[in-house]
């Protein structure tokens, strides 16, 4: 029993944090809003070079041979940086899915994702839309208890416009074609749940990072902005708004990290742990957005101030990979199943 990350894990996280804070500036994010794809192939290549797309691929296959526990810290950083690139969708969701599918038609994509030459998107029934399909080569579609691999070039996609200018989302119109089926039966059923777990946990980790980034921006702003002759951050009402957010994200951290460990170790209650993580981190991020705009005053309501980049990401991600109601039902099932199997001594 040792609930802590290793020095190596933390050092790797720090290096990624440094990279993202240097490269993914708000200037870059804003300039990408003006481009057709909203994505930067340069940045994507850099991420691949760092090995991030292949974090969950064994070293013998050219990856970093890490697991979900390592990746969760990176996913949190993606949230903190409000990274627009689909790193998480590829490295944490698509790659393990492709590995598990292990189908001759899809295996070639693994290496290409590793090298940054290709991307995959996921169409999961819990989601209405597919994100980043416009820059992906392959869409993995869960349909009729099967998994189909659809070349993006062949897919009918309708672009949608959402609140977050960095998010690129599409409606996929796809009728099952037998030749696209790459998994079915028990495997497909298992992967349906596993993919949902990964997707929901990725949202949780991003929410965690987004919440902390927003508080950081608020602390900076309110330390400088003066009213009534003093920094507004010295007013108790402002402080307490921020402290309340900090309590939320501090107590979401262990829940999120634990869910990552459960996925890495195929814990039988992984879905429960993920559901809890998604609920807790969402709570923190939405409160960070609400109090964040409040302590920024009218500034927070402008397009010019960067806060909205994070707020909108938090709002948009919140409704993906299962609603709060969906995840609460997962918790409910666990809690009411057997009250002798919950409580003190039954957390691990």
């Amino acid at each position, binding site marked *: 029993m040792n609930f802590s990350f290793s020095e190596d894990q933390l050092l790797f996280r720090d290096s990624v944090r440094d990279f993202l804070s240097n490269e993914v500036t708000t200037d870059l994010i804003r300039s990408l809003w003006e481009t057709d794809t909203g994505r930067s192939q340069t940045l994507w290549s850099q991420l691949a070079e760092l090995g991030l797309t292949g974090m969950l691929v064994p070293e013998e296959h050219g990856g970093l041979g890490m697991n979900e526990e390592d990746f969760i810290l990176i996913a949190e950083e993606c949230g903190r940086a409000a990274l627009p690139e689909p790193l998480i969708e590829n490295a944490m969701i698509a790659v393990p899915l492709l590995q598990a599918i292990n189908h001759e038609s899809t295996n070639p994509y693994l290496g290409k994702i590793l090298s940054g030459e290709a991307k995959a998107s996921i169409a999961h029934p819990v989601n209405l839309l597919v994100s980043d399909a416009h820059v992906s080569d392959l869409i993995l579609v869960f349909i009729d208890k099967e998994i189909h691999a659809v070349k993006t070039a062949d897919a009918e996609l309708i672009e949608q416009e*959402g609140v977050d200018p960095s*998010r690129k989302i599409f409606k996929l119109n796809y009728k099952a074609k037998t030749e696209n089926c790459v998994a079915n039966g028990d495997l497909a059923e298992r992967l349906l749940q596993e993919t949902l777990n990964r997707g929901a946990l990725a949202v949780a980790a991003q929410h965690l990072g987004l919440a902390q980034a927003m508080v950081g921006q608020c602390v900076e702003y309110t330390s400088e902005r003066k009213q009534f002759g003093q920094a507004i951050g010295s007013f108790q009402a402002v402080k307490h708004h921020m402290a309340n957010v900090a309590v939320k994200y501090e107590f979401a951290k262990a829940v999120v990290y634990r869910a990552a460990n459960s996925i890495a170790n195929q814990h039988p209650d992984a879905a429960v742990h993920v559901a809890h993580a998604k609920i807790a981190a969402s709570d923190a991020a939405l409160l960070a957005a609400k109090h964040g705009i409040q302590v920024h005053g009218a500034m*927070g309501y402008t397009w010019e101030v960067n806060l909205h980049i994070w707020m909108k990401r938090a*709002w948009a991600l919140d*409704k993906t990979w299962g609603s709060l109601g969906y995840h609460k039902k997962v918790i409910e099932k666990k809690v009411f199943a057997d009250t002798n199997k919950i409580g003190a001594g039954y957390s691990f």
Partner: protein
Amino acid sequence: MDLAYTQEHKAFREEVRSWLAANVPKEPLKTFDTAEGFQQHREWEATMNKGRWGMVTWPEELGGRGLDLIQWLIFEEEYYRAQAPTRVNQNGIFLLGPTLMEYGTEEQKARYLPKMASGEEIWAQGWSEPGAGSDMAAIRSKAENKGDHYIINGQKTWSTRAAFADWTFGMFRTDPESSRHKGLTFIFVPLNAEGVTVRPIPQLNGHPGFAEIFFDNVKVPVENRLGDEGAGWNVAMSTAGFERGLMLRSPARFQETARRLVKLYQENEKEIDDPLIKGQVLKAYMDAEAYTLNTYMTASRLINGGSIGPETSTNKIFWSELDQNMHETAMSILGARAELEPHCSEARGVGSWLDGFLFSQSGLIYAGTNEIQRNIIAERMLGMPRA
């Protein structure tokens, strides 16, 4: 206490309802945060004025109908029920108008109010400055008295509607030696005056709902002053009270949002997987009703000769949180569709909830942040000690 409408009230409601049914544009207007939409809204105000509906509580000679506040509430109820356009001139008719009635000379009233009621002149508020937001007394923009005119220099910001409006009003420091609440004067400035530059500020939704206004040696006649020189703070406080309080935030607005929320819930009931949401919908209904009942009580008190006090602050907190809660609930109901702009192929039934959600975030901030309102309640309503 008599909580029934009179026959006269009922007849008035019918009159409003049928006029609106005949005149409210079938197609929703474009947002007034665009030049085209602004013009559409200006035309709508002209249409309203033809029917003498611009500001029904104002005296007939100023373009109104001389009706009382209960009738105003009835008018507003029908107006929101009919989904008529948002009033582009609300800074004029709801904020400046009542203050002008109180502090203006007869000449000023005759000059400004009819054109305000008719929408011919649209007003933008000029409360805040870069260094003076919640702390309005920190105003630094100056107006130098040159006998028959003022020379104005400085900057205002967060000026709602200023991108396309005709006039702005605000406080300017006329006594350069003064500080804080003293030495301020309330002045009207035409936005087409020489030396005025308006720089629109895009909001969360990308539209320029407010703007910065720069004043560079702008010359305005002394007749543009409202109230005495140096008395600007008192004049403004009465306006700020109106802004926080009764006039601007019609209960009907929140009742209709609550009703639309109930309908949204019913339309999506089968997909809603969290029982919490129904509770939030019921709370929205109740809070909108509570706000309405409270407003009728306040209106009755005013009609009976009472005055408006720190309850403008409880009002501000209540409606802004209600509005935010309702829109959050709508987002929860819409689920995966909540993030979508209404024109998207998958945006079935999202209506304008997303834009309303963004806008609801501002309610807790403008017209004095809710933190400032809580200070006011604690100190002025409850008598707690100042810091």
